[in-house]
């Protein structure tokens, strides 16, 4: 039986970073979102979040599968799915309530309509039903339903991926290819809408993340091709950065050959275009080299807020989404002034960090209380 693995700090750190990015990117026109990854290439924080979610799912449940068997592990995973679902529904209610509150407080009933929760006004009863079925998701509430679907399938993926990670990658890639070719998607509400993040396509990021966790140090055979892979990754990132910057500067844009444009566009997000996925893999490869698991810099105090946010990812994701809406309201109230964008961004991240520290403090308290309890069973965990 394997010894308890060291906690990979990188997972928390980069998940925290992804959560900050998601918050910043969800405030439209936010100048601070220039700091986020999406402006320098094809992929954005969603890929980071989903990949790390797949990776940590294996870390969290594979030992349990080993020691306690499949039924208990599956039950544990579904308990987590349930937590995600509850969090999503709570977020949906809080999100809608915030819009209602703002429009009542500012005496602008038009806001409810303007921020129309896409159908909640037309047919509230139906919309609530569809929200419970995850088919009705107001703007920005698309990530958690994706995660719920992926994790709900995970009890069936887990036993396969720990034994045959390559086979899982193969099946996952095949489903991804078929989905983008045949335009499969899950139904949404109102009718004919589809999932903004198509789970049938985005599963590829999650499952490649899961397989990488199974490989663990087994990935070191890739280091034989280290030079080539690094060169390829850097070249691809530079290409992506050039294209991304060309969207902001027309003289650069005119330098993009027509045949290149013909090949790359559109860079679909719903079905995660292959360019987005490759871009993420290139980043992941370079991060793996630049930040090894035992890098001393990982222990620096300055990263602690990021790590704390990453550790409490579900809580921080919900708070971030909620605050992004508040931020949107505030920023638009100040007519998109840059100062308001900066203040809202800093405040929002500060609130997320405070919440994360409180969550960590709370958890420590629980752990301490648990350790004070008399040991009733002889089986050490």
């Amino acid at each position, binding site marked *: 039986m394997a010894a308890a693995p060291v906690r990979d700090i990188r997972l928390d750190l980069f998940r925290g970073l992804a959560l900050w990015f998601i918050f910043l990117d*969800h405030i*439209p*026109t936010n*100048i601070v979102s220039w700091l986020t990854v*999406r402006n320098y290439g*094809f992929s*954005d924080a969603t890929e980071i979040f989903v990949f790390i979610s797949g990776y940590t799912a294996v870390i969290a449940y594979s030992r349990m599968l080993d020691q306690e068997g499949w039924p208990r592990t599956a039950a544990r995973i579904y308990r987590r799915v349930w937590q995600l679902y509850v969090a999503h529904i709570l977020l949906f209610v809080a999100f809608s309530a915030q819009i209602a509150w703002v429009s009542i407080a500012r005496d602008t009933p038009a806001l409810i*309509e*303007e*921020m*129309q929760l*896409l159908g909640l006004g037309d047919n509230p009863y139906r919309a609530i039903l569809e929200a419970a079925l995850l088919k009705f998701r107001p*703007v*920005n509430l698309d990530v958690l339903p994706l995660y719920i679907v992926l994790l709900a399938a995970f009890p069936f993926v887990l036993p396969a991926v720990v034994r045959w990670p390559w086979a899982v990658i193969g099946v996952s890639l095949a489903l991804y290819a078929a989905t983008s070719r045949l*335009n499969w998607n899950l139904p949404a509400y109102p009718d*004919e*809408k*589809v999932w*903004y993040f198509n789970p049938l396509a985005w599963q590829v990021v999650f499952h490649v993340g899961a397989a990488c966790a199974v490989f663990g140090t087994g990935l070191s055979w890739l280091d034989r091709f280290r030079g080539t892979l690094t060169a390829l990754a850097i070249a691809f990132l530079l290409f992506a950065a050039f294209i*991304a910057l*060309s*969207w*902001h*500067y*027309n003289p650069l*844009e005119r330098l993009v050959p*027509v045949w290149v*444009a*013909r090949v*790359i*566009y*559109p*860079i*679909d*997000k719903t079905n995660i*275009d292959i360019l987005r996925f490759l871009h993420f893999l290139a980043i992941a490869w370079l991060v793996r080299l630049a930040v090894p698991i035992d890098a001393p810099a990982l222990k620096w105090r300055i990263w602690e807020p990021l790590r704390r946010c990453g550790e409490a990812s579900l809580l921080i994701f919900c708070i971030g989404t909620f605050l992004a809406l508040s931020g*949107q309201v505030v920023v638009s109230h100040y*007519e*998109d*002034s*840059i*100062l308001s964008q*900066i203040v809202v961004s800093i405040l929002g991240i500060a609130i997320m960090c405070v919440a994360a520290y409180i969550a960590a403090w709370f958890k420590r308290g629980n752990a301490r209380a648990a350790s004070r309890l008399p040991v009733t069973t002889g089986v050490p965990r």
Partner: protein
Amino acid sequence: MRRTIALLVAVLTLATGGAAHAKSMTLCRAKPEVLALGTTLPISRKAIAERKLLRIIALGSSTTAGYGVSNPAFAYPTQLRIGLEKALPGIDIEVINRGIGGQDVEEMAARMRTEMEDNPASLVIWQTGTNAAIRHMPLEKFDKTLRDGLKLGTSLGADFILMNLQYVPAVVAVADKEAYEKVMAGAAKDYSAGLFRRYDIMRGWYDDGMPYAQFVQLDGLHLNDFGQKCIGRLLTRSIVDALKAP
């Protein structure tokens, strides 16, 4: 510490001083001649004069559905309703959004009858062409399907406005995008439909030095918040001008 804060405040004040913020709607412009629809919208005029009511169906694909905008109300159909309500006080304005992402001219022509019978409207805005162009639908087929749709639609008693392709990287990269545009212009003319020249309007933005990031989502295909709002505003202006023309 205090000095750092003072410095920070100074920098922020400077930054906000020059805050000609990026997505300002003052950038939303078009030359008057590209806004002319080439129709007088007789059926809509009659509905406004006799019933104080203008009901519009926005038939289209992802632009109409508002794919990827940060607030569904930014999609051009809602913007059009808000704009028309302001421009035509006392008139009941209804805009029914029938945009379905990914649909092509064929699928829209096929649902034309049900859409119009479900919601009898005086004006149909038919946004199409982009998906046909990027999927390289044969031009003759595009032409025929479009004309069949227009023939059916106009026979059901509504004014029509065709909204043509968007000027975005994914469309610009298509070799014969202008051919699709021409087909739409020809069909509009033959069926006395209006033509909302989105392609030329947006090309004007680009030629004026506006970067794609200002009006296109990062996928290089869909209009972003600014693009949608501006198209909604310009379409409102086109329609109001057409209604008020002698």
